[in-house]
């Protein structure tokens, strides 16, 4: 789960990390009033969770109320890399002489957190990492001890941060690590961490991703989860408790287990189709989850055909078959053709239960995918006129 910039900055500020003065605004008038209150110049920043907001026109620096109005009007309501902007952060513009990068993330190979510091802030750090890995100082942290002050200093001095601000930057890094640990973050990043002419250090941007598996013990962060920010279908999937990712194709995919669902997507592509989604109903799914999954995929208007692929371990074929029947018997006309393949636990029982008037049954994964791709292509051809 990714926090918005304004949410992350709120968390930072509460922990004592200096951030610029700012106000959140959802209308042009609110934005102008906020800018007047903070004092010019201010930055007007789209609050959507995409990288490269600045380059895409989602951040404007303005010097007076008129410019603030123009910028807020342009940014509010804009479509930024597919996401609708409905809020902006109006923020004091910091007059900086230097831009640093600090971050904490999980090194999955080592199984422990790593802190990173660079004097090359303000640009895409992944590019810096690719072109000049030496420009980033890395310090692994023992998760049991937590970051020690010397480790923060080691990273900060090692990165070549100016001596005038090194102590403050070290202290901020220590605070950020503590936040990372206390709030179950998976990634925490300040880019840029700005240094002013008076040698003050201030977090001008804030990225904070929280471990979705730890939200049960971070109730205040769980409340920040912004379902409205994503796609409507993704919000619905959240409600149903599915792992769901929407894609752009027309073959809907439902399956159990991440690896097998990914494989089903890949096979749709391999056989010339285009996957519409990733939907993992999880292990041990009962009839109701199956019904919900079909409802999800049917409500994606891009979908022309559905492939339902279950390999039962803890999931039982008879439960799945019952769910498919129940879901489809509710329709006067099946909205989109459904191809089912059941294997594993109670697959034979499931096959017997399945109402083959309502679904097409295939014996293998490959056949099921090919059949669904063919259905989708037929229907897509029919709806686009197909009079050739």
């Amino acid at each position, binding site marked *: 789960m990714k926090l918005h910039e304004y949410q992350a900055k709120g968390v930072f500020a509460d922990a004592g990390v200096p951030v610029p003065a700012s106000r959140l605004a959802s209308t042009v008038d609110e934005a102008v009033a906020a800018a007047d209150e903070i004092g010019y110049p201010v930055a007007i920043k789209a609050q959507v969770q995409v*990288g490269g907001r600045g380059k895409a026109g989602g951040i404007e620096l303005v010097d007076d109320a008129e410019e603030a109005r123009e910028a807020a009007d342009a940014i509010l309501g804009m479509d930024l890399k597919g996401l609708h902007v409905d809020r902006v952060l109006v923020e004091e513009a910091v007059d900086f002489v230097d831009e640093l990068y600090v971050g904490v993330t*999980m090194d*999955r*190979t080592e*199984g*422990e*957190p790593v802190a990173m510091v660079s004097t090359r802030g303000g640009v895409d750090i*992944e*590019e810096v*990492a*690719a072109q000049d890995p030496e420009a980033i100082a890395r310090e692994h942290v*023992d*998760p*049991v001890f937590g970051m020690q002050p010397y480790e923060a200093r080691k990273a900060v001095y090692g990165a070549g941060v100016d001596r005038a601000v090194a102590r403050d930057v070290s202290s901020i890094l220590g605070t950020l690590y503590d936040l990372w*640990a206390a709030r*179950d973050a*998976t990634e925490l990043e300040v880019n840029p961490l700005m240094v002013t002419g008076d040698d003050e250090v201030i977090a001008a941007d804030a990225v904070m991703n929280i*471990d*979705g*598996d*730890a939200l*049960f*013990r971070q109730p205040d962060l769980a409340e920040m989860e912004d379902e409205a920010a994503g796609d409507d279908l993704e919000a619905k999937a959240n409600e149903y408790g599915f*792992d769901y*990712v929407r*894609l752009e194709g027309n073959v809907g995919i439902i*399956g*159990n*287990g*991440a*690896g*097998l*669902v*990914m*494989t089903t*997507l*890949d*096979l*749709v*592509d*391999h056989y010339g189709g285009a*996957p519409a989604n*990733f939907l*993992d109903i999880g*292990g041990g799914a009962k009839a109701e989850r199956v019904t919900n999954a079909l409802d999800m995929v049917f409500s994606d208007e891009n979908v022309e055909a559905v492939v339902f692929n279950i*390999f*039962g*371990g*803890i999931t039982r074929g008879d439960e799945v078959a019952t769910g498919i029947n129940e879901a489809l018997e509710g329709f006067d006309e099946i909205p989109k053709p459904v191809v089912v393949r059941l*294997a*594993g*636990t109670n697959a034979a029982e499931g096959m017997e239960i399945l109402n083959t008037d309502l679904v097409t049954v295939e014996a293998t*994964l*490959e056949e099921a995918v090919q059949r669904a791709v063919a259905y989708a292509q037929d229907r897509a051809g029919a709806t686009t006129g197909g009079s050739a």
Partner: protein
Amino acid sequence: MSILVDADSRVLVQGITGGEGTFHTRQMVEYGTNVVAGAVPGKGGQEVDGIPVYDTVGAAAREEDADTSVVFVPPAFAADALLEALDARLDLVVAITEGIPQQDMSRVYRKLRETDTTLIGPNCPGVITPGEAKLGILPGNIFSAGEVGLVSRSGTLTYQVVDNLTQRGIGQTTAVGIGGDPIIGTDFVGILERFEADTRTKAVVMCGEIGGEDEEEAARFISEYMDTPVAGFIAGRTAPPGKRMGHAGAIVSGGGAGTAQSKIDALNDAGVPVGDTPEEVVDHIEDVL
């Protein structure tokens, strides 16, 4: 021969009195696994199908001479259960639990490094040596004893590939699901080196997926240290960057690291053929047997 588990393994189940724990213990026993004890705090003195339950892992291991644990404890308490298993100095711990917070696993991993215990998982289907014993939730009936080792980050994809192998009359030595989380106890290399050392394993199937660099490391290991032929499969070719595809570990980073193509290229460079479909993987295995 087999790796990790056989009919002689003495197995204890952590969380044996829970719904999943009881159900899968029954399945394991039915398959032939020698389940000697359960461990659940506060449930000491009870029995599950005649299997004695102890309050602590230490007591269960000591009294019943257990060397292996299978963990079905819910995510919020799982890290504690894993630390307890490590403290008891078992040989092998298999963590089935899905959804353990990353920072908890980071601490478990830190402790793991100080012990000689092998941890498989978490968020994995378990380990099976067909015809001998299984640890976890794998459906025993699709496996058959034979000469091919299998290692995978995914549960149901493992079943798919095993089913394809078995249908074509190709049996397995041992199949290991290493788990779909970012931090897991044993990576591909940890399993590949055991298959390489196992005299009965004549070929290995390795099923990877997007995210992380484990497959790339495995490719380096295969090219330097393995004589046993390996065939691969990589799931997630069509996954968009920045989206978590079900498994917490299955994510292509915004910067493009962890893509399926990078893994396929690394494996191909190591001389490992990668199938476009699960059936193609089985074709590659047929070719080398």
